[in-house]
C-alpha cells in the first residue's frame, strides 16, 4: 500500500495527462484532466513552502543551539520573513518592499552572478591548457565570439562580428540542435520510465 499507491497515482495521473494531449476523453478531459496542470502548479507551490519550512527548521535549530555564527541564521530568517510577509500584507508595490528589493536583493543577486566571471576565466585557463586539437578549436571559437561582441574586436578586424555571427548561426545552432534532438529522446524515455513505475528514484530510492 505504502509503495504501490503513490506509484499507481503517478501512473494514472501521468498516463491520463499524456493521453489528453492526443485524444480528448469525454467528461474526463474537460472536468478532471484539464485541471491537472493547475493542480500540479498548486501542489508545487505547497512544495516550495515545504522547502521554506525546512529552511526555517534548520536555522531555528542553529539559533537555539547557539552554533557558530548563529547570527547569520537570524539574519537569514529575518530577511526571509520580511520579504515574504511585507508583499503578502501590503502587495509588492509598497515602498518598503521596493526599497529592500532595489538596494539589497538586486545588488546581492547581480554580484553573486558576476562572481562567476572570475571563475569562468580560471576554468577557461585550465581547459585551454590541455593542448589538444579539440581544445584549440574551442578556444578559437570562443575568442572569435568574444571579440565579435566587443567594439575592440571590430576595431582590430572588421570580420570579427561577421564571423562571430556565422559561427553562431551555423555551428552553434547545428550542434545545439543535434544535442536537443538527442536530449528530447532521452527526456521522453525517462518520463515514460517514471510514468510506468520502472524508475522510482524520485521516492528516495525506496
Amino acid at each position, binding site marked *: 500500500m505504502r509503495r504501490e499507491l503513490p506509484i499507481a497515482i503517478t501512473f494514472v*495521473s501521468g498516463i491520463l495527462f499524456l493521453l489528453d494531449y492526443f485524444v480528448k476523453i469525454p467528461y474526463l478531459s474537460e472536468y478532471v484532466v484539464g*485541471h491537472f496542470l493547475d493542480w*500540479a502548479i498548486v501542489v508545487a507551490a505547497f512544495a516550495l513552502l515545504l522547502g521554506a519550512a525546512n529552511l526555517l527548521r534548520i536555522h531555528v535549530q542553529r539559533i537555539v543551539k547557539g552554533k557558530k555564527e548563529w547570527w547569520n541564521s537570524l539574519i537569514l530568517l529575518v530577511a526571509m520573513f520580511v520579504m*515574504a510577509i511585507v508583499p503578502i500584507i501590503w502587495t509588492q508595490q509598497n515602498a518598503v518592499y521596493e526599497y529592500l528589493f532595489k538596494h539589497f536583493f538586486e545588488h546581492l543577486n547581480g554580484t553573486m552572478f558576476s562572481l562567476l566571471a572570475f571563475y569562468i576565466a580560471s576554468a577557461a585557463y585550465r581547459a585551454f591548457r590541455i593542448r589538444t586539437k579539440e581544445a584549440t578549436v574551442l578556444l578559437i*571559437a570562443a575568442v572569435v565570439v568574444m571579440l565579435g561582441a566587443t567594439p575592440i574586436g571590430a576595431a582590430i578586424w572588421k570580420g570579427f562580428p561577421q564571423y562571430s555571427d556565422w559561427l553562431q548561426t551555423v555551428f552553434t*545552432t547545428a550542434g545545439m540542435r543535434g544535442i536537443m534532438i538527442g536530449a528530447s529522446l532521452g527526456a521522453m524515455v525517462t*518520463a515514460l520510465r517514471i510514468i510506468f513505475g520502472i524508475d522510482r528514484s524520485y521516492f528516495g530510492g525506496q
Partner: protein
Amino acid sequence: METLGIWIGALCTLAIFSYLLRENPFFRTAEHLFIGMAAGIGIFYGYQSIVTNAWNPLFNPGDEPRQWFMIVPLVLGVLLYTRFLKKGKWISRIPLGFMVGVGSALAIRGVIGASFMNQITATMSLPLWGVMSKFGIDSLLFILGVLGTLIYFYFSREQKGPLKVGASIGKWVMMIAFGASFGNTVMARMSLLVGRIYYLLGEWLAIL
C-alpha cells in the same frame, strides 16, 4: 534614504566580492542575507500561486462559478507536510507521485513538439544551397553538423567506417558550438561584472 540605499548596495557588493580573496565572515553574512531574501520572495510567489489558482476559485469565486475541484490540490498540498510525521511520512508520497506523474507527462508533451519534431522538420526543410549565405554552402554545413552530432551520440553500433566519419564531424561541430557558447557566457558574466564595477565607481564613489 537614497544615499543610504547606495551605501547598502555598495557594502553588499563588496562583501560578496571579498570571497575572491578567501571565504570570510562578511561574505557568509551577505550570502545568508541573499538566501533569506530569495527564499522570502519564493514564499511570496508560492503563497500567491495558491491563493490565485486554488483558494480564490474555491472560497472567493466572486462572479465566476465556484470550482469545487480545487479542493483536490489543496488537500494534496497539505498532505506533502505529512513528511514531518513519523508514522504518516509515506502519505507525502501521494502528492509527490501526482506531481511527478503530471510533470513527466508534461515533459513528453513539451519536448515532443518543440524540441523534437519541430527541430527535425526545420532541419529537413532547409534548402541545401543559398540560405544563410556566408559561403553559399552554409545550410549544407548546418545539416551535416546536425547529423554529425546525432551520429556522435549513437552508441548502438561500433563507430567505424561512415559512422566514424559522421561522429568526427559531430565532434568538431560540437567543439565550435561549445566554444561559441562559452564565449557568449563569458561576455554575459563580464557585462554583469562591468555593471557592478560601474555601480561602485559611478553611483557610490562618483568617480565615473
